[in-house]
Every structure is written in C-alpha cells, then in structure tokens.
C-alpha cells in the first residue's frame, strides 16, 4: 500500500487455471501485488478436465532439460502440498507411490523399453531410477493386473493428486495473500506503455508493471499483443470416470488411476480435433476396452461420467517460458502438464518472474524461438 509504485498491481496474470493460479500464488508469496484476469464459464478449462498425474517417466525425448524440469517439479511437489495445507487447510491428496506404464503385448514392451533407452541415453539426461518389469515382477508389485498384461515400465517418482482440490487450494491461497481475482474478464487488448502494461477487458482496464500470459490455448491470441509468438493448439483428450469403489489400485498407471475418493479414472487419449470437445463413443470404448484388459475387475463398474478436454499443445510438446524482448516485463508460461509442473511454476518460476528475469542458461531452451529454425530445403 505504501509503496510508491505507479501501477495498481505489480503483476497481472492472464488465466486462472492451474498454470495461472500456481504462478499467481507464487508471485503473491514473493510479495508481489497480483491481479488474476480469468475467463468466464465459456472457457475451455483444461484445469478442470485433466487426468491429475504428477508424472516423470517417459518425458523429455528430444529435450532432456524438460525431463529435468519435470523431475524437479515432482521432487518439489510434497513441499507444495504441505505449503497449501498449512496455508489453506486443504489437502490436495498428493501421493507419490511410484507409477506404471502397462504394456498389453510383448511388442508394446519392446517399444516401451526402446523408447526409454533412447530417452535415458541422451547426453544431458537427468539421472533417476526407472525399470522395465516383466510380468512376474509387475504382478508382485501391482497384484490387480490382468492376465493380458505383458509387462510395464515403472518409475518411483510418479504420483498423482486431486487436481480439482489443487485448483481450489491455489485460488484460496492466492486470495488469502491478497491477490485480486477477476472472473469473466477476457483480455481483449494489451498495451505496453510507459514501462508497464494496460490490459483492457469488456468490464475494466487494469494497469500492471508486468504481465504473465498463462491463458492456455488463449496464449496464441494474446502473445502477439506483447511481441511473443506462442504456437499452441488444442489437442483433445477424453476421460471416463467410474463410480467410487473401495481402494484396490495403490499406484497410478499412466492411463488408469484410482482417486483419493475412490473413483477410477481412465484416460490419456490423444486426438487432433480443433476446438471440438465432443465425447466420441469410439474413443471412449477403445479406452474402456484397454483398461478392462489391464484390470479385469473394472469391467463390472458403472461409468458415471465421460468428458473431453483440450490440452494446450506446442509443436514439440514441450513448455514455453519466455520474456518478451520488445515488451520487457511480459512473460509467457504455457504447457500441457499444469499439474505435474505446478510445484515448479509456484516455487521456482514465479520468484524469477517477480524479479523480472528468466536466466537464459536455464530457460533459453524453453523459449518459443526454438520453433524459428528455418525449414531446410
């Protein structure tokens, strides 16, 4: 209040999903005066439709720094959960019992082993424990697997969380830290003036010293307003949820997990379908069929909901973290793993944005300039 700043807010965060809320909470913890401008109920809301894994294994082929970034966030996740519980009283049900990627044929086992070997043979790859398991070893670790499961990869760093409660806890936490939250404030225009930014919505004008684009697929539209190219596109994923049942699955599998409250989620489909969030019976039935082959006891459960949500996907699947050159103070943070990376966004990225600098030696690889390589003839 007593600081002689010219702007009402130090930072405006555009987007109140998991990325925006994690960054905003981290900024507010760092002492910044934060305003979050969110969309209304028309938003696509990937943060309410995701699969809620905190996942490490298999990530980073082609960009080993992304593997290290994911592992680092997984390592910080228990701290994030503790901080949110201490501050808000909300338990986000973070568990890190180790996770499996199940294979339904010997060919799938071979392909998985080959992919992971290539991933971990990359020169700059971060070191962590993982293993390919044959059927006997897998069955000993994960007894509910059915007879058709041929093997699996396993990583002790993998876990999961209640992502809806995470979103609620981040919002409760940032508002307790006096961050302002403006719902139904679609940003229509950003002007860079006088060392700061003016954001125009239908309802208001907001002035802030810095701006963070964390609007998911909306970043493609917002980026050019502050001299950033943010090539993200929607990629559809579909999810099935069963009725709640007694705990039977102690570990998350990349496509099947039992939530803290007992529901079984089945997911991880990938489709290029533009902005269409229709649930397709074909995809859902294929997902259900594979899940029942993995865990036959799922076959008798009632499905209570299916839905489709849109991932926020870059051309290479890796995140973008970048400060604008032409409009310094404007940052973009976008990824398709807002759950896994929430700890890094809140506890690592936000303090750097508060200081106004993303060090090039760590964050240069995550700049969208990597997409500017001229096409070869």
């Amino acid at each position, binding site marked *: 209040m007593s600081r002689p700043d010219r702007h009402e807010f130090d930072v405006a965060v555009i987007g109140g999903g998991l990325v925006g809320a994690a960054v905003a909470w981290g900024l507010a913890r760092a002492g910044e005066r934060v305003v979050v401008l969110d969309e209304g109920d028309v938003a696509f809301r990937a943060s309410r439709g995701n699969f809620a894994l905190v996942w490490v294994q298999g990530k980073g082929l082609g960009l080993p720094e992304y593997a290290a970034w994911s592992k680092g966030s997984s390592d910080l996740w228990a701290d994030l959960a503790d901080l949110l519980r201490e501050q808000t009283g909300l338990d986000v049900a973070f568990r890190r019992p180790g996770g499996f990627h199940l294979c339904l044929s010997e060919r799938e086992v071979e392909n998985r082993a080959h992919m992971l070997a290539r991933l971990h043979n990359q020169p700059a790859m971060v070191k962590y424990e993982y293993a390919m398991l044959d059927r006997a070893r897998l069955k000993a670790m994960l007894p*509910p697997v059915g007879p058709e499961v041929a093997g699996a990869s396993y990583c002790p760093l993998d876990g999961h969380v209640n992502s809806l409660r995470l979103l609620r806890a981040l919002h409760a936490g940032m508002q307790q830290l006096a961050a302002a939250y403006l719902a139904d404030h679609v940003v229509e225009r950003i002007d860079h003036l006088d060392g700061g930014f003016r954001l125009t919505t239908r309802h208001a004008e907001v002035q802030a010293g810095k701006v963070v684009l964390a609007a998911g697929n909306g970043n493609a539209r917002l980026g050019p307003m502050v001299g950033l190219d943010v090539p993200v596109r929607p990629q559809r994923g579909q999810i099935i949820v069963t*009725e*709640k*049942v*007694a705990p*039977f699955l102690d570990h998350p599998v990349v496509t099947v997990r039992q939530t803290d*409250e*007992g529901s*079984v989620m089945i997911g991880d489909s990938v489709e290029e379908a533009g902005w269409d969030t229709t649930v397709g019976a074909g995809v859902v039935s294929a997902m259900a069929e594979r899940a029942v082959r993995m*865990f*036959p*006891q*799922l076959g*008798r*459960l*009632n499905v209570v909901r299916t839905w489709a949500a849109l991932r926020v996907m870059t051309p290479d699947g890796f995140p973008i973290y970048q400060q604008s050159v032409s409009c310094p103070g404007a940052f973009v943070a976008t990824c398709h793993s807002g759950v896994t990376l929430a700890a890094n966004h809140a506890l690592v990225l936000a303090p750097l944005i508060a200081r106004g600098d993303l060090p090039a030696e760590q964050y240069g690889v995550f700049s969208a300039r990597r997409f500017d390589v001229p096409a070869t003839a």
Partner: protein
Amino acid sequence: MFRRLPDANAAMIAVTIDGRAAQVRAGDTVAAALLSAGILASRAADVSGAPRAPYCMMGVCFECLVTVDGVGNRQGCLVPVAAGMRIETQHGRREAGR
C-alpha cells in the same frame, strides 16, 4: 413412518434383507421394500460415511444405492423385488470386481 395405500390384491414374496428373511410386496421396488420394512438408512455415503436414504424414488438422485444379489451400487428405486432376492444395505464403497 410410511403407510401403505390399501391394496388387497398384492401378493407377498420372500427375500432376505441383510441376511434376514423378510416378506415384501410384489411389485415394489427394492427401495420401497426397504422403506416399508422400516429400514430408512439404506447405505452409508462413500466419502463421508453419513447415513443416506432413498430420496427421489425415480432414478435420479442415486441416494438409494444398495447391493442386490451380490452386485453393489444398484439403484434400489429402479430394481423390482423378486422372489429369493438378496438385498443388502451398503456400508461404504462397493468393491471393484464384485
């Protein structure tokens, strides 16, 4: 709590409710049979454990979930009683695979 409208023609059939023999009216649903038998809490909620009772009686609210012939989470208000049926009130979540 509930009083039945007079209906002289309805036959009674034998079922078990939580393992005890019971006579219920043919044509009733499982939920109606439980209420008629004075069993108001037909399940314990799957997250909080609070007692719950049949509510909408038309398949919408999912409050009347019970175990019927060994299958959990059946909607009691949509299942007609049948001779020999095993009806169990449900305490906590159903088991996967049962």
